[in-house]
């Protein structure tokens, strides 16, 4: 009897200890983004303070999406915290795949940039907290622009961008007027091209969620994109995305580049100037909005501890911790996240692009409107968008390479998108 009691007691102690141990360990799936990599080091202080052990699983963006989706679809439990983007957050929040995030008063949720907060919420409830956000802007070689006698202003017209690219274009000396994304992918060429379409007054879908790729706005925007990149872009642009263009730019081969604001922190050439993204006379400019955020999957057994960690990792204190960290400093603090960060003099001094980035993020318009009946700037926050975007991306790359005419590519895109949306039940 004594032995049985002792065994029961030992088992109970082991179970309690096991449960306590389980609560103190979080598995976090992250993208290989500079800010998330830094967080692994900064968070050592969190572990020291709270005793919560953190297991980081770093994955490439595409693989992360695939693994998180399969984990969520199969009941979850593999991860306690996941990195998701602005495209997924509202959809997954609506589907109940991720937990709503409610933080204490000290967190100051109103300090999160309104555009980011809106893009990561569903029906006003925050489902993912941003650890890094970005918009897009024009980055150009001021020395080349000055030598060519052209200027690029904030929110310039596309016609003037074309003119500037033409003036700086000097392929004999290895300089191409404009470097833009051409590699097919909904997050690659379509991220940029969608912002061009937006600025021409177009949108992916009409009020009935029927694809609107057969409109004059798409035709005009895509023709402009193909002309600009075809005439003044580097050869093989249909294979270029962020990393390829970053390498070209740092080799001094690009006159201007319109892309993610984070690019500014990787540029090593001298004389870079920034301008807000262009538009074609419409109220919506060609600047996108994106955030990588942290969310808690519904299947996580450690929801409370996970929410507590996210509260710390996206707080004002975390920004201070990175800024004052001997390995990182103020040039490495998370951007595009909190308004208070941009007010810090230390940050302003360390990041020359801060003002341009803040202005770009603030002017992005992710909310649904009469023209654009869906949430999102360079994407539509609907589950079918990755499929639609990927198909259209291939067609646009074909148009850019000259394998198809713009009209043929748009007609094929419209037919494919229509089939996907019809199949998904948006209309008969």
């Amino acid at each position: 009897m004594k032995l049985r009691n002792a065994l029961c007691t030992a088992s109970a102690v082991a179970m309690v200890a096991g449960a306590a141990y389980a609560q103190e360990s979080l598995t976090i799936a992250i993208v290989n983004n500079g800010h998330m990599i830094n967080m692994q080091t900064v968070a050592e202080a969190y572990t020291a303070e709270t005793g919560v052990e953190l297991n980081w699983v770093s994955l490439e963006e595409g693989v992360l999406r695939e693994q998180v989706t399969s984990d969520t679809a199969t009941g979850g439990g593999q991860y306690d915290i996941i990195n998701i983007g602005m495209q997924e957050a509202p959809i997954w929040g609506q589907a109940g795949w991720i937990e709503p995030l409610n933080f204490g008063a000290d967190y100051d949720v109103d300090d999160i940039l309104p555009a980011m907060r809106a893009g990561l919420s569903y029906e006003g409830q925050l489902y993912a907290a941003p650890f890094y956000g970005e918009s897009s802007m024009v980055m150009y070689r001021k020395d080349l622009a000055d030598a060519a006698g052209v200027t690029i202003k904030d929110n310039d017209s596309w016609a003037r961008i074309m003119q500037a690219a033409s003036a700086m274009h000097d392929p004999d000396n290895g300089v191409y007027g404009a470097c833009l994304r051409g590699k097919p992918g909904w997050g690659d060429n379509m991220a940029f091209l969608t912002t061009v379409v937006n600025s021409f007054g177009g949108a992916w879908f009409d009020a009935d969620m029927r694809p609107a790729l057969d409109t004059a706005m798409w035709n005009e925007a895509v023709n402009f994109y193909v002309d600009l990149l075809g005439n003044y872009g580097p050869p093989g642009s249909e294979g270029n995305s962020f990393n390829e263009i970053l390498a070209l730019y740092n080799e001094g081969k690009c006159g201007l580049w319109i892309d993610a604001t984070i690019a500014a922190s990787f540029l090593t050439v001298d004389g870079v100037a920034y301008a807000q993204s262009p538009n074609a006379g419409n109220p919506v400019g060609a600047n996108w909005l994106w955030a990588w955020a942290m969310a808690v999957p519904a299947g996580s057994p450690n929801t409370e501890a996970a929410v507590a960690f996210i509260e710390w990792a996206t707080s004002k204190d975390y920004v201070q911790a990175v800024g004052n960290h001997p390995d990182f400093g103020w040039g490495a603090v998370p951007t595009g996240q909190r308004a208070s960060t941009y007010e810090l003099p230390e940050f302003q001094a360390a990041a020359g692009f801060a003002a341009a980035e803040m202005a770009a993020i603030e002017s992005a318009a992710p909310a649904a409107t009469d023209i654009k009946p869906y949430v999102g700037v360079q994407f539509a926050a609907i589950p079918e968008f990755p499929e639609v975007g990927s198909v259209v991306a291939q067609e646009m790359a074909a148009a850019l390479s000259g394998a198809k005419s713009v009209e043929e590519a748009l007609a094929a895109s419209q037919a494919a998108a229509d089939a996907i949306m019809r199949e998904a039940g948006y209309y008969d």
Partner: protein
Amino acid sequence: MAIVAQSSKFGTYGRPILAWAVGLLFFFPIFYMVMTSFKTDADAVKPEFLFFFTPTLDNYLNMAENYDYWRFAKNSVITAVLATVFTMFVGIPAAYAMAFNPSRATKDVLMWMLSTKMLPAAAVLYPMIYLAKGIGLYDTKVLIVTVLSLINLPIAIWMLFTYFKEIPKDIIEAGKMDGVNTWGEIKEILVPLAWGGIASTALLIFIFCWNEAYWTVRLTTIDAATLSKLIEGNRAPEGLFFGRLSAVSTAAVGPIVVLGWFCQKQLVQGLTFGAVK
């Protein structure tokens, strides 16, 4: 006469030069990767530092300190070794049976096994994940060893079958007449005779297991994650971390390249399926 002289001249100088050129062409990506691993991320993309740069060990130190390299490496060694052993353990008797005791169905069975390699892995991804989670084996070495063994078994059996077919049946039958049982035939006669083929098959299977990335990335989280997952995690869509990525890749392929170097004779024999005999 002139033609003979010309062709022998080509044989003396041309062929070695051509062989070296092809060899260098194939080796260049590995050389470039190793070289890049000693550059900083910023230097790695600057053309002026293509061959001349100040080498740094920072990427390797960073990897050892922050990326837990040894945990991934240990898992790679354990899963690749066990999967190879298991594959050979099942593959040798299976190939033996088909080579020396063929039935009418043998050809079809061999073709069926090969056809399983034609199925795109993505087609069975979700069923595999459901199954692995359902039986509680997700992110375990047991699962990875099982999957690696099963996906490589068809190739192993095909290779072993090809080697075994070259051994005269009479030798096996002589053993039978001397009263040796099946296990004895395999152990005492077949394995010593086909040792070269078995070794080259095992080596190739080990390399396949070590380099496998589709399943090892998708069926693991932490506990069973292999070096493939470490490399995968260092790819970035925004930011050129080529120095870091090259260091991780070099450290991941290093052991297998060294192993391949020591066993190149067997490997060539395995890859050419005995064509050089």
